[in-house]
C-alpha cells in the first residue's frame, strides 16, 4: 500500500548500503522496477477505496460521505458501527488480558520449571494456524450455546475464542523475547536476594519482557479488530460484522471505516516493528544505520 510507494523514495539509503551486500542484493534498477510494478498494482485497490469515498452524490467529487459520518443527523443510521467498534475494543482489552495474565505467566513457568514442556507448548500454541476459524466455529457454536445460557450473550465472551485465535502470534512475540534474555539467571538472582515470586514476575521479568509483551498485545489488538468469521457465525456484533451490515445500506461509510481500520492496523504493526527494532539495536552495540 502507501508504504510500498514511500519505500521507493528511500533510494538514497539503498545506494549507501549497496556495497555492503555485493552480489546478492539486486541492482537498484531491479529493485526499483519490481517495487514500482508490484507497489503500483497493490496501491490500486487502496486508491480506489479513497476515490470511492470521495464521490459526490450528483457526480464529481466532494467530502460529503466523510462529513455524513460525523453528522449527528445520521447517528441512528450508523449506531451499529459505534456499537460494533465498542464491542471490538472491549474484546481487544479482554483478549490482551488473556495473553498477559494467562499465556505469558504459563510460558515463563514452562521456561523456568518445565523446560521439557517447551516443545509441546509451542505445538499447542501454533496449532490454531492449522485449524481454520470456520472449522473452529463449528465446534464453538454448541459451546457458546452453553455460555450464552450460563454467562450471557455479551460480546466480551468472544474473547475466549479470540484468545485461541491470537495464540500463535502472541506466542511467537513472547517466545522471541524469552529466548533473548536469561530468565533463569534473572530469577535466581532475584530469588537469592529475597524476592518473592510475585515481585520476580512483576518487577524483574515483566520489565525485561516488555518488548515481547507489548508486541504480543499490539498484534492481538490487530487480530481482534479484523476478526469477522467467528463473530459473524456466532451472531455477536463486532466492528467487522457491523461494517458488513452497514455496507448494505451505505457502502460509502463502510469503505471509509474500512480504510481507517486498515490504516490503524498498519500503524499498530509499524509500532511493533519499531519496538522490535529498537530492542535489537540496543542489544547489538553500535547504531550503524539510523534509518
Amino acid at each position: 500500500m502507501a508504504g510500498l510507494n514511500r519505500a521507493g523514495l528511500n533510494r538514497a539509503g539503498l545506494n549507501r548500503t549497496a556495497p555492503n551486500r555485493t552480489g546478492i542484493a539486486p541492482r537498484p534498477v531491479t529493485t526499483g522496477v519490481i517495487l514500482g510494478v508490484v507497489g503500483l498494482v497493490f496501491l490500486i485497490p487502496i486508491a480506489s477505496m479513497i476515490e470511492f469515498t470521495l464521490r459526490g452524490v450528483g457526480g464529481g467529487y466532494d467530502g460529503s460521505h466523510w462529513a455524513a459520518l460525523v453528522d449527528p443527523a445520521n447517528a441512528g443510521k450508523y449506531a451499529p458501527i459505534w456499537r460494533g467498534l465498542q464491542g471490538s475494543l472491549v474484546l481487544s482489552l479482554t483478549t490482551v488480558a488473556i495473553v498477559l495474565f494467562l499465556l505469558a505467566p504459563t510460558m515463563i513457568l514452562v521456561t523456568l520449571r518445565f523446560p521439557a514442556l517447551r516443545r509441546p507448548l509451542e505445538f499447542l500454541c501454533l496449532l490454531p494456524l492449522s485449524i481454520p476459524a470456520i472449522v473452529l466455529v463449528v465446534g464453538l457454536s454448541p459451546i457458546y450455546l452453553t455460555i450464552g445460557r450460563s454467562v450471557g450473550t455479551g460480546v466480551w465472551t468472544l474473547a475466549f475464542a479470540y484468545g485461541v485465535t491470537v495464540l500463535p502470534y502472541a506466542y511467537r512475540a513472547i517466545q522471541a523475547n524469552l529466548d533473548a534474555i536469561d530468565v533463569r539467571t534473572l530469577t535466581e538472582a532475584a530469588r537469592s536476594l529475597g524476592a518473592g515470586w510475585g515481585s520476580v514476575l512483576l518487577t524483574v521479568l515483566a520489565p525485561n519482557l516488555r518488548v515481547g509483551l507489548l508486541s504480543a498485545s499490539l498484534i492481538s489488538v490487530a487480530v481482534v479488530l479484523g476478526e469477522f468469521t467467528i463473530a459473524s457465525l456466532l451472531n455477536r456484533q463486532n466492528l467487522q460484522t457491523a461494517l458488513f451490515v452497514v455496507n448494505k445500506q451505505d457502502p460509502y461509510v463502510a469503505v471509509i471505516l474500512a480504510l481507517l481500520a486498515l490504516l490503524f492496523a498498519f500503524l499498530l504493526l509499524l509500532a511493533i516493528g519499531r519496538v522490535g527494532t529498537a530492542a535489537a539495536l540496543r542489544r547489538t552495540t553500535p547504531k550503524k544505520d539510523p534509518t
Partner: protein
Amino acid sequence: MATAVHERVGVVDSGRRRRRAPAPAALGLLPFGVYIAVFLALPTGIALASGLFTADGAFTFENLGALGDPVILSAFGNSIWLSFLTAIIGAVVGAALSYAMLGFPEGGRARAIVDAASGVLAQFGGVMLAFAFIATIGLQGVVTLLLRDGFGIDIFADGAWIYELPGLVLPYVYFQVPLMVITFLPALAGIKPQWMEAVLTLGGTPGAFWRRVGIPVLAPSFLASFLLLVANAFSSYATAAALSSQGSSIVPLQIRTALTSETVLGRENVAGVLALGMIVIMAVVMTAYALVQRRAARWQA
C-alpha cells in the same frame, strides 16, 4: 499429571525449600491447560466428531456420504483449485518482491513499512479487502468504470463474475503476496554474501551462484512458504463471505450455509462433515509444510 511431575522434580531437587515447590508449580499450568482444553481441544474435537453422529446422538458413518454429493465435491474442488492458483501467483510475485527488498538494509525504514503493510494485508484484511475490490472492480468500481468509459471494455459483459468464484482470485492474490513476503523474506535474507564471494573467488559467475547455491538452498523455504499460502487460502472465509453473500462455491461458504440453515441436501450435521473434510486437507498440507520447513531450517541461523 501433577503427581508425575512432582516425583520427577522431587528426585532432582534436594534443597528443603524447593522440595515443596513442585506441586504448586505444576498447579500453575492448570489455568492455561483448562483454557486450551475448553476453547481449543473441545471445539476441534466437536468439529471433528459432530459429522459422525446423528441428531439423536447415535454413531454413524452415514453423514459422510455428504462428501460424495456433487455440490460438496465441486466446492472442495473449487477450494483446492483456488488455493493452488492463488498460492502459485502469490509465491512467485511475493518471492520477486522479497528479492527486491534485499536492496534495503535490514531493520531500515523501508523494510519496516513493507513488513507492516504486509502484515495488515496478509492477516487482518478480511472483510475490508472485499470492500477494496468492490470499490476497484465492482459494478461501480473505479477500474470497471475507467475501462467502460475510457476504452469501451465491459469486464462484466459475461455477468457479474466478481461476486462468483473467479472474483475471489484477485482479492486472494492480494493477501497471498504479502504473506509470501512475511514468510519468504527471512529465508532470503539468510543467504550469506560470503557464499557469493566464495563462488566468485573460485571463478564462478553470479548466475552460477544462483543456479548451484542460491536456488538449491532456497528451494525448501520456497516450497514451505507455498504450502503455507495454500493452507492460508484454503482456510480463508471472511473475504469470500463479504464478496458473495448468496453463493457457496467454496467449502467455507458451504459451512456457512450448513450452519445457518437447518438441513442441507436433506442430511444431518453437514457442517461437521465439511469441517472434518477441511481438517483432513489442512492436516495433509500442514504436515507437508512441517516436513519441508524442517529441511529449510538447516540454512537458517
